[in-house]
């Protein structure tokens, strides 16, 4: 852009007053079209969903919530799976994303090319990661089992592992796919953070005889705290409500072994035709997202004020 040179900005409040000398209506005329449209598109449906949660066959009441929180062992199972899915996804994405960001932040030939190629999984249509990893993990004709054969993991008589067909590995396989899809986004956020670290600090630390590990621990990590916080929150939120990867890879199976909240909501709404209960589960999912969501919103709006 031609106009990105940051000329020293004026203090915001003074400017705002000067921009709107006559009418305070201007800002609202600008922002209202968006806000009103979004409110209609979101509030009406959410209101309808919320109403549904208090309706059941027996009339109005809290039956659906009682069922979700006390009686439905599947809901409990799905909550556990969703937390595992989000937790291990975020850990994997963060470690991988940070590692790649560190490599790409230093001197490296073809750095720009590497950066673009590492980002590719993030650009894929939401169903494609699930599709391709389902095929890679396929028990009979999957390339993972083929590779394991070739490196001698399986003996001649072994039955190859059906990664998505057995309860012990299905959820883990979906997590692998989600890490693959999500780590590029983590990488690009952390890379931006790394490039903002003051390089004179490294020079000074080197002069003082700090080795690479100490420089990483004492300079890089503290400087990356803020951006890491936001990146981890975003990754957590995205993983916590993920639907496409699990739905396409296992649809929650086998025997609900990889059932997460989103797939359970979908099942109840569109397979069991119980929209009231599905909406209840959806509202519970929303409630579980409120803490990370609130922290993310606060951190983002605050950083805009600086």
């Amino acid at each position: 852009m031609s106009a990105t040179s940051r000329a020293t900005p004026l203090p915001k409040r003074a400017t705002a007053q000067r921009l709107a000398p006559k009418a305070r209506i201007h800002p609202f005329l600008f922002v209202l079209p968006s806000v009103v449209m979004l409110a209609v598109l979101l509030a009406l449906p959410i209101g309808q969903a919320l109403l549904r949660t208090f309706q059941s066959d027996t009339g109005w009441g809290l039956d659906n919530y009682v069922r979700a929180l006390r009686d439905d062992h599947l809901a409990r199972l799905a909550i556990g799976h969703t937390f595992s899915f989000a937790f291990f996804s975020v850990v994997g994405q963060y470690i991988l994303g940070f590692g790649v960001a560190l490599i790409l932040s230093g001197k490296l030939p073809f750095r720009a090319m590497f950066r673009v190629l590492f980002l590719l999984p993030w650009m894929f249509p939401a169903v494609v990661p699930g599709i391709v990893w389902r095929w890679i993990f396929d028990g009979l004709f999957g390339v993972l089992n083929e590779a394991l054969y070739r490196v001698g993991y399986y003996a001649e008589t072994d039955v190859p592992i059906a990664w998505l067909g057995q309860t012990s590995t299905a959820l883990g396989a979906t997590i692998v796919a989600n890490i693959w899809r999500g780590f590029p986004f983590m990488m690009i956020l952390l890379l931006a953070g790394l490039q903002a670290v003051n390089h004179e600090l490294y020079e000074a630390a080197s002069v003082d005889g700090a080795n690479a590990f100490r420089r990483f621990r004492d300079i890089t990590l503290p400087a990356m705290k803020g951006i890491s916080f936001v990146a981890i929150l975003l990754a957590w939120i995205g993983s916590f409500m993920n639907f496409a990867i699990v739905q396409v890879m296992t649809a929650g199976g086998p025997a609900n072994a990889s059932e997460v909240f989103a797939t359970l909501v979908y099942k109840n709404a569109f397979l069991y035709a119980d929209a009231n209960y599905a909406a209840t589960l959806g509202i519970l999912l929303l409630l579980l997202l409120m803490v990370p969501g609130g922290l993310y919103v606060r951190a983002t709006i605050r950083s805009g004020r600086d």
Partner: protein
Amino acid sequence: MATTAPMTANAPSGLSRAGKDRLGTGVKVAIALLLLVVTLFPMYWIIISSLKTNLETHSVPVTFLPAVWTLDAYQEIFERRNFAKYLSNAMVVAVATTLWGVAVAAWSGYGFARYDFRYKGALMAFVLIAQSFPRILLVIPYFELANRFGLKDTYLGLILAYSTFIQPLCLWIMKEYFEQIPRELDEAALVDGATPYRAFWDIILPLARPALGATAIIGFLTAWNEYEFALVLTTTERVRTISVAIASFIGEFTTEWNLVMAAAAVGTVPVVIIFLFFQRQLMHGLTGGAVKG
């Protein structure tokens, strides 16, 4: 960082500082390449599998290159499975949502970028929440409302649904861009007697043209990649998008993997091309404004 050799260079073991640097770089390139191979392998596997015959995808040992190279799968999905239609559906929905989203986002993003006003914090929070709202909750009432208002299996239904996340996404990115344009420019126009709307339209919008383009591309890619709404709001091929078509190939008992992979390739290639072509312009907006840059 590994390559920043200590300033007090008494290089041990006979390696000069430059030599150590080169060694460090070599190791880094090797690690980067290794990780890249792992990262890109699924892409390779999509392409290779799509060029095999159905028989070969269901044979062991699994081959890393097709024994018989064939375009049968592509011929099948385009000639008999109507993939041109799914592609054009996805295109129509993504383009319409994006045009509308960017237009509204530019107008409102300017307001958020330039003014302080009452409830601004709350409204910004609302936009951010809308941007990452759990779609699996929204699809339930949207399914019902679409049925009631005759919007099921229509472009309009999908466009309205997509607007719930495309519009806030575009708004936030545009706001970040506007904040980088010096305020003196609008102020000069205001001093000359222009209304704020004139200042926006005549001065700022032309300057923001590259930002509009970048935002539109990100909006388009995001809409193209969507799955949940498209899955629930389309029942026939009339408006079904490519994402739903790809996933629908997964069979309960058998799956023709060469077809699935060809479908995945066809759905992915456009976004990869667009991304590779515009990546320089997209980098900032890609993070949805989570990083200043």
